[in-house]
C-alpha cells in the first residue's frame, strides 16, 4: 500500500475518536439545535422567478462541488444588495 493510503488508514483512530466525541457531546448538550423556522413556519411563496446565463467554464478540477457552496447553508449571510 502507498504511503498515502497507510497514513490515511492510521488517521482512522484519531478521526473516529474525535467524531464520536463531538457526536455524543452534541447528543447530550444539543448545542446544534435551534428553531428550524425555515421548515416549521407557514410560508406562502409565489413561484420563484429568475435568470441565469453561462459566464465561464471550469476544466479539470478535482473538487466535487463549487468552491464556497452555500446553497443549503440558509443562515450563512452573504453580502447584502443595496436597495433598488
Amino acid at each position: 500500500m502507498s504511503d498515502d493510503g497507510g497514513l490515511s488508514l492510521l488517521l482512522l483512530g484519531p478521526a473516529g475518536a474525535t467524531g464520536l466525541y463531538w457526536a455524543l457531546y452534541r447528543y447530550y448538550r444539543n448545542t446544534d439545535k435551534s428553531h428550524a423556522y425555515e421548515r416549521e413556519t407557514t410560508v406562502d411563496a409565489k413561484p420563484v422567478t429568475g435568470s441565469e446565463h453561462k459566464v465561464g467554464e471550469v476544466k479539470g478540477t478535482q473538487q466535487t462541488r463549487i468552491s464556497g457552496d452555500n446553497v443549503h447553508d440558509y443562515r450563512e449571510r452573504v453580502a447584502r444588495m443595496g436597495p433598488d
Partner: protein
Amino acid sequence: MSNAQSPPPPPSKFTGPGSPQEVPPAPGDLGVDPAALPQPLRDELLAPDPVAIDTSASELKDGLNHCPKCGATDVRPKPGTDLLVCAFCRNEWHGERVEEQFGFGQGLDQLEGTVVASGARDIEADAASLRSFKCTGCGAEVTVNTANAMTARCHWCRHVFGVNEQVPNGAVPDAVLPFHIKKDDAIARIRQFVDKRKLLALKEFKAQFTPENVSAVYLPYMIVDGRASADVAGKGEIETRRYTQGSGKNQKTYYDADVYQVERHVDFTVDDLPLESSRERGNLDAKANTNNIINTILPFDTKNAVKWNASYLAGCSSEKRDLDVEHLRPRLEGQLLSIARAQVVESVSRYDRGVRWEQEGLDVHGTRWVAMYLPVWLYSYHQPGKNGGLLHYIAVNGRTGETMGSIPVQQWKLLLVALTVGTFLEGIAIWILASQ
C-alpha cells in the same frame, strides 16, 4: 484547472442579534451510526424521544383546546357568540381567540408598513394587578399577578422574593397561550429525555435530578406576520464531464463544469414567526448559555392564543418583554432571508455541483407584530465552573410537548469512551497495515 471567475467577495458579517448560524439537523439525525457503537450507548441513542404533537408549518393544528369540565377536545365555537361549546358535555365557556377577534390570520398578502398590535391597553388588560419584580438572586425580571400571590419564586434561579423589590414596569402582551401539557406529563417527558442521556451525564446532575421541580413559565415572544420579496445572486456549476487519469492507486477523478451566473427572486408571506422578545432569552450563543434549548421547542400553535387575561398566569411565573419592534427587526430580516434562501433551493437543483450565493437582498413590504406569552415547562440545573458556570435547561413546550434539553457531560467519561473507540479503530487500522 482554470476558472474564469474571480473569487467571491468576503460575505458581510451579519451584525444583528442573530440566530445561530448553523441550520439545525433534521429530526433524528445523530451524526453517528448507532449500529457501530457498544450496546449501552446504542440503547441510549435508540430509545424513543418524548412524543411531540406536530405543529409544523404545513399543519398548524387547531382544536386542541380541552373542555375544562370533561377534558374532551371536541370543542367548537358557538356560532354568534364568544363562547366555546364542548360537543361532548355541552359545557360552555369563554374563549376569545385573538386570531379571529382581531383578524391576525387574515390579509397577509396585503400587509403594508409596520402594524403593531395595540398591546394590553386596548385589550382589557389586567394591568393593575400585574407587577414586575427584579430578582435579587439573578437579576431576572419576573411578572406576578398580585391578585393571586404577593411572593414568587424566580424560575431561573429559584430565589424567593417579595413585593417590595418592584421595578417600575408593566409590559402586558396582546395575547396568551394557556398551558395544555400538565405538570405530570411534563415531568414524565423530562424524565424520559434524561433517561436517554444518563451514561455520560455529570454525576452531580444525576444525583440532584428532581424533575418535580419543573416550573411553569410564560415567556414573552413577538409573533410576526410578514410580506417580503427577496433576491439572491451567485454562481452555479453544472458538471459537463467526469474522467479519471492515472492508474492503480494514483488514479484521480477530474471534473469539467459550466459556470452560470444565477439570479432568483421570490415573493412570500410568513405567518406567525415567533421571536424571543426578552433580550436575555434572545441571546442564543450556545457557548455562553443554553437558551438555544428554549428556542428549539418553538413553534407553538399560536393560532389558538386567547386575549390577554392575567388569570391565565395564576400559579405560573413569567418573564417581562424588554425588546421592542425595532430591536427585533434585524433578527426578523435575518430569518426572512434564511426562509427565502430555503425557498429558492428547489429552483436551483439543476446545478448539480452546487451554488455559491454571493449577494442577497430583502425588501420587507409589511409586518404585523403581536406580543404574546407562550407556555414553557422549564427545568434547570446549574453546573459550577468558570465565569459563574453554566445553567442547563430542559424545556417542554407547554402546548405540543416538544422536549429539548442540555444535559451536562462528565468530561472524563466522554473522553474515555471516545479514546477507547478510537484505540479500537486504530488497532484495526494497524492490523490491516501489518497484514499487507
